[in-house]
């Protein structure tokens, strides 16, 4: 399982094998939303903050 380090709290998080580009994961330690910005090597950044017109 690949590991990524949370840019917010530096906790190590495991990634599932079927992870997708731009998928959002939640840091298991601090709870921040992280976005997958590269698959090779696995890299994350803080996910965009929810905006007013977001929805379904």
């Amino acid at each position, binding site marked *: 399982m690949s590991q990524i380090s949370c840019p917010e709290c530096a906790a190590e998080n495991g990634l599932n094998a*079927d992870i*997708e*580009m*731009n*998928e*959002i994961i939640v840091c298991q330690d601090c709870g921040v939303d992280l*976005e*997958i910005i590269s698959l090779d090597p696995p890299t994350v950044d803080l*996910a*965009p903050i929810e*905006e*007013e*017109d*977001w*929805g*379904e």
Partner: protein
Amino acid sequence: MKKSPRIGVLYSRVRVEEKWIFAAFEQRGIDYEKLDNRKIKFDLENPTPWLQYDAILERSINYNRGLYALRILNSWGIPTVNTASVAEICGDKVSTTSILAQAGVPQPRTMVAFTPESALEAIESIGYPVVMKPVVGSWGRLLAKINDRDAAEAILEHKSILGSYHHSIFYCQEYVEKQGRDIRATVFGDEVISAMFRKSEHWLTNTARGATGEKCEITPEMEKLCLKAAHAVGGGLLAVDLLEHPKKGLLVNEINHNMEFHTVQPISGLDIAGMFVDYILKIARQRS
């Protein structure tokens, strides 16, 4: 030999729904491209880069990005699911309510006003409690259940002073005592494919706010109402939210043009992601 259609999927975030949709494209061996709406550009006088797509499935979380993209794509004759017109109606609660009223679809009583003073009059003519909603927004955000005049005055002042201008389009609606649940019906074209109760002890029953889903039988009344509402807004792939009014019966509360289905897919047992793909392919094949 007829070529296989090429589909673009416009998205903001890869949620579980997008993962399921991508997987369904791959299972069917369909030529598709993921289009991150943060990276795309439209040269309004040159549609050529976009004409490679036989249809675009629009799955943006950002309502405005999705709407403007659909307007441009439709102006170039590129089929989309849903269309710009449907997104325009469903994404704006005043538009939705107006169109549904014109079509004779039963809804909670709704009034619209443009100043705090006239909104207060509207609220009091409906009678407390009243629900105020932003005209654009989702997931139950910024909704207010107003139980008395003190609360009404405070909310109206806050909305007019602290909010951006569109928060001063005051959308005031009768509060429906819904016994802890509403109904989310999923409409694909001319068919209601599923319905589920969304249950919560909170007056808001959005799953984004923690409500849980439970399978609901599709009654003939529900089916007829959902199809009438869906046709009124232009049809397509739609999630129709219904309230069970104790006296008036089923009312249409809102219609979502870009539905999330992470709760309904497992509850219904349907492959909704696969149905999305089959639907967009049908739209694309009509063109190619």
